């Protein structure tokens, strides 16, 4: 069967769990920004957790179904409607042939994940269906969905309606959001005062916030330890000899506005990085709207690993719940 895209929303892309293995060529792993929500949506409709679904940012698409299918929408609180009748988020429901799935105005979060039983079955590139527009990989001919697209969906039985992820297992950022940071990489380039300021100040998500990275503003400018710049690094004190960037790494060009790289990260560049967001909190960034207040919290490796285990435990509980 196919999904007929009637309206595409703002930027609705096909995403799965990404294509690791090509970052050394500048091709990022990509995939759902909020992976927990994508996994949960797939589990709700009986798909493998890694199946491809849709990631809709800020605004939902409008989709006509040509055959019966189970659907679940997780992540952002984006009101769900079937032929204009409301449906619950984080809960499975059935679409009948000819019915139209649409969405209301965003209430919380930033990205909704739409899973369809059978999973979206477009042609994978480098082992993944995730859309990476810069490199024209995955998605629909390397791009986001557009009105008129007909997305192929795999064959799969439907599941019961009303399967639901308990509220306690739905994870989202607070307000102000807290993002935990493990310092490292080029942290030593900052003065002690600048390092303290970074964690003391409250930052705001800027308008430039997308799958590649999130920019933050509003904190005090950061000062660098004085040095003679190394050969090949460039004159600005925030420059280094171009190196690799970690997923979740935080660069502060010119010391002014931190940028956190996300799933579609550029793989390297010439700016110092002060550390990285811990892996457990990467999902939360995908749910931050512009103008949200954020505090960065300094943690150590043990805390990062404990948070990683906690997140995995939540996924395991959802799995058990939906058995």
């Amino acid at each position, binding site marked *: 069967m196919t999904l007929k895209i009637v309206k595409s929303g703002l930027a609705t892309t096909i995403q799965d769990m990404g294509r*690791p*293995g090509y*970052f*050394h*060529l*500048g*091709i990022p792993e990509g995939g759902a920004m909020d992976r927990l929500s994508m996994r949960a949506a797939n589990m709700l409709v009986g798909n493998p957790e890694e199946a491809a679904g849709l990631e809709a940012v800020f605004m939902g698409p409008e989709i006509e179904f040509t055959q019966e299918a189970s659907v679940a929408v997780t992540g952002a609180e984006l009101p769900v409607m079937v032929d204009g009748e409301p449906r619950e988020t984080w809960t499975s429901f059935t679409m009948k042939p000819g019915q139209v799935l649409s969405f209301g105005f965003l209430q919380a979060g930033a990205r909704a994940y739409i899973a369809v039983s059978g999973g979206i079955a477009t042609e994978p*590139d480098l082992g993944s269906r995730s859309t990476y527009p*810069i*490199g*024209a*990989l995955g998605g629909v001919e*390397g791009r986001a969905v557009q009105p008129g697209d007909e997305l192929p969906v795999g064959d799969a039985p439907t599941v019961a309606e009303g399967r639901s992820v308990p509220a306690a297992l739905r994870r989202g950022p607070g307000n102000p959001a807290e993002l935990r940071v*493990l310092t*490292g*990489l080029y*942290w030593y380039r900052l003065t002690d005062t600048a390092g303290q300021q970074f964690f003391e100040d409250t930052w705001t998500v800027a308008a430039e916030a997308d799958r590649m990275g999130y920019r933050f503003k509003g904190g005090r400018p950061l000062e660098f330890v004085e040095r003679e710049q*190394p*050969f*090949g*690094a*460039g*004159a*600005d004190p925030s*420059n*280094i*000899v*171009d*190196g*690799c960037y*970690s*997923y*979740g*790494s935080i660069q502060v060009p010119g010391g002014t506005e931190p940028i956190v790289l996300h799933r579609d990260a*550029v*793989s*390297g*560049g*010439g700016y110092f*990085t002060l*550390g*990285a*967001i*811990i*892996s457990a909190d990467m999902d939360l960034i995908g749910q931050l709207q512009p103008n949200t207040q954020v505090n960065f919290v300094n943690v150590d*490796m043990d805390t*990062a*690993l404990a948070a*990683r285990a906690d997140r*995995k435990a939540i996924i395991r509980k959802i799995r058990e719940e939906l058995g």
Partner: protein
Amino acid sequence: MKTRYTYGGDEHVYVEMDEEMSLEAFFKSLSMSNAVREADIPGVTEICPANASFQVRYDPDVTAPDEMLKRIQDLEHMADKAEKRMTTRIIEVPVYYQDPWTHETLMRFRERHQDPEGTDLDYAARINGYDSVEAFIKAHHSQPWFVSMVGFVSGLPFLYQLVERDKQIEVPKYLRPRTDTPKQTVGYGGSFSCIYSVRGAGGYQMFGITPMTIYDPRQETSYLRDFLVFFKPGDIVKWKPIDRAEYDRILAEVDANTWAPRIAEVEFDLDEFNKDMTGYNAKLMEALNDA
């Protein structure tokens, strides 16, 4: 050179060979990242070599961070002992310097540049002490370059020139990055040249453009049928200046999938190169005559 080990969050180990760029740091980074690949440490998912550093991504639930860092550190002595030589290829890449497309783009973003009165080439020639743009362009293409990193986006190569440090060209990046750069622009920032593999944002100075496709996700280009990315670290590049007529001719042939770059297999030995750079480069470039 003092190696520095650090963590990038809980999923990356980052290893910097040296704060400053040199071919010695690049060779060590490449041989150490190769040693990590051969060591086949459980949990490793990505090994990314860069100019003077490299990064390993791994699953800390498979190998714990301190254990991962230690196992990588243990490989350093192997990289120190490794021969600084490699079998690689030299590729002739045609460049149309001072082309109309990068010129239009650099004029459009002039207020983001250090010198709004001139062009990127005027500025780069002047701050590097060249009498004319022509002399500067000649310096850019007369000696070959080493691909020291592939990345940023979609197979973009960073290149480092095979000359003494006092002959290296150095230019700053734009004051504020552009939101647009033509596809296949030959750019320059810090001590690195690059080729923008796709159209998009960029902060490097723009010198010219190549008709040679270097990234093809559809893999239709004659020399990209096996893999969508052309360059890999260790490739050697010789720029060949071309005019508008030759640019148009090559571009049409690339589009028709009938063009292929001149490539020759060569040995590169860092110690031999360091003894006589100009002589060594002449031999490297001679290999292209038979290609």
